[in-house]
């Protein structure tokens, strides 16, 4: 194995690691949006989940329990969001924004006493496969959550396009009034979608504070919730494209960390801007073709439904 290969493999591994929270959150948001609800509270849910997961892991010394608690916290917030938007009919954009602002504040408040704690970052390796040159280092030494997120992506593809329940979910997102007329309970279906999205954002937040950087820093999600929202548009609401997009963004993030190591002499802030600028570029590229977006976007996205 030559030298360049041995430096590339860890970069691939790190990119996948960095892309995983984006993918988890974006998959959850994709399910939300397929049901016609956009939840701008992703950033807030991820932050609260990150600290709840971290605090749980610190007290119980179990990372698994941390993930469970974080998913629970995400679902709790998403349930509240559902109560507001789906039942009280509040504006989805404003409510999501309120959730993000609340989550930012609440996570900072809860997190004060956990600043300075850290968890150990155990090494994982898939038996046998991790010993394969290059591929082993690049793909098979990830946290189990990385593989779970891939399974989740596959499951969502199957659910959306191969299962009856997925068809109903998409119908609710395309035309809630038709789904309602057919006897489906639009509100409950949207609640279920939102709870699933909250759980995914919760896992994504916990991945940040338990695996990616196993400690708590105020505001550590650093816009990933918003980038995940952009990813669903980028992916034109297709789960497989979410996967590609998330890993691409993971790659951009990792490049910014390693560029200086590779001899690029540039202030770290310029590099740190890259994921945000990339999000803007991607949004611009994808939005230019308005018809294409319109064809792919769930038709009732952002609009509330009042059954009569």
């Amino acid at each position, binding site marked *: 194995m030559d030298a360049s290969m041995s430096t590339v493999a860890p970069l691939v591994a790190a990119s996948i690691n960095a892309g995983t929270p984006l993918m988890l959150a974006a998959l959850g948001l994709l399910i939300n949006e397929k049901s016609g609800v956009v939840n701008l509270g992703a950033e807030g849910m991820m932050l609260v989940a990150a600290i709840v997961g971290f605090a749980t892991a610190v007290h119980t010394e179990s990372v698994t329990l941390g993930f469970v608690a974080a998913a629970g916290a995400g679902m709790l917030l998403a349930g509240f969001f559902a109560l507001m938007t789906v039942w*009280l009919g509040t504006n989805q954009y404003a409510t999501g924004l309120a959730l993000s602002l609340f989550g930012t504040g609440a996570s900072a*408040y809860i997190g004060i006493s956990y600043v300075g704690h850290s968890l150990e970052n155990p090494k994982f390796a898939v038996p046998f496969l991790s010993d394969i040159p290059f591929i082993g280092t690049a793909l098979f030494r990830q946290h189990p959550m990385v593989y779970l997120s891939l399974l989740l992506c596959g499951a969502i593809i199957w659910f959306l396009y191969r299962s009856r329940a997925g068809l109903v979910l998409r119908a609710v997102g395309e035309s809630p009034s038709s789904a309602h007329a057919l006897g489906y309970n639009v509100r409950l279906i949207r609640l279920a979608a939102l709870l699933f999205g909250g759980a995914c954002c919760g896992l994504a937040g916990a991945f940040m504070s338990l695996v990616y950087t196993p400690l708590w820093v105020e505001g550590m999600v650093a816009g990933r919730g918003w980038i995940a929202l952009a990813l669903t548009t980028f992916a034109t609401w297709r789960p497989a494209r979410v996967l590609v997009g998330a890993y691409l963004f993971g790659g951009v993030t990792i490049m910014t960390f390693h560029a200086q190591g590779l001899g690029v002499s540039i202030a770290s*802030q310029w590099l740190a801007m890259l994921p945000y600028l990339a999000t803007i570029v991607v949004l*611009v590229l994808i939005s230019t073709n308005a018809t294409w977006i319109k064809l792919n976007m769930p038709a009732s996205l952002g609009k509330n439904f009042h059954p009569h």
Partner: protein
Amino acid sequence: MLKLEKRPSPSALMAWLSPVFAVLLTVVCGVILFVALGKNPVTGLAVFFLEPIKDLQGWSEVGVKVAPLLLIAVGLAICFRANVFNIGAEGQLVVGAITGGAVGLYFDHGEGGGALMITLVLLAGMAGGMAWAAITAFLRDRFNANEILVSLMLVYVAQLLLSLLVHGPLRDPEGFNFPQSRMLSDGFLLPNIVNGTRLHLGFVMAMVASALGWLFLSRSFAGYRLQVGGMAPAAARYAGFSSRKALWTSMLTCGALAGVAGVAEVLGPIGQLTPSVSPGYGFAAIIVAYVGRLHPVGVVFSSFIMALFYIGGELSQSRLGMPNAITGVFQGILLFSLLACDVLIHYQLKLRK
């Protein structure tokens, strides 16, 4: 069991009462939160609502916080009425602080300054905020890119830009390597309007902005066109009102006001460029705009409430042993409360038989 029943027509009374209910609901939530955290709720309320305004010094500090909140909220009221969801005012504020601060530092050699120079620096801040907002407006106008996400991404970029500058080109060479610029000299700082306090000219500018915002929205044809576009895009198109014009007008106005808010922080309470020039005023102003009913005069009252939240948060550290971050929690609760109370504009509560 209670149920919601749609009103025949939206209640105008509730539209005005809802913000008041929302503030009261937030207070109730605050009391519950204080009790849950084992604090005395009476002391807690006093810290947030009495102590900040117990003397002239207190009022002036509230005014210092009102200035940026009100400036931005007036701009956001115009944006949201035009249905332009600019949530990146924080970034526009930061860039205003950068451009204004940089121009000020360039001309400041320890002496000079004066009214003309301060005006120039303010204009530089305004231009910076406008330019930053223009990026979002352009990408939305030309490429149909979602302004929520673009303006928000630009907040992170602006904050990194500020960090870059205060760690590099604008760092004080005699500042022991601290990431901050030189202090601006007195001739460059905004004059205080009440002796012995920190209340500066920015407060007056914010009040003027509120009055001009009201004139624009309520008394000008351009403001009327902009709001028709926001409320009924189809009707606006039919009438020949340009939605592009509404987008650009509202974004540039908001950028200008946020830019002024940013530079006024630098020329006012801060006096130099630091890595963080705002404790989230740009985001808090979104809540201020909504609670003020997107009305340029309404936001005067809501920015006062929000200023109390900020000061209360600062005091609660010493008085209650609660971290400053409690302000962010209350901000979120306030917006949730408002959205919930607003339901009563279109619906009424009925007892289910």
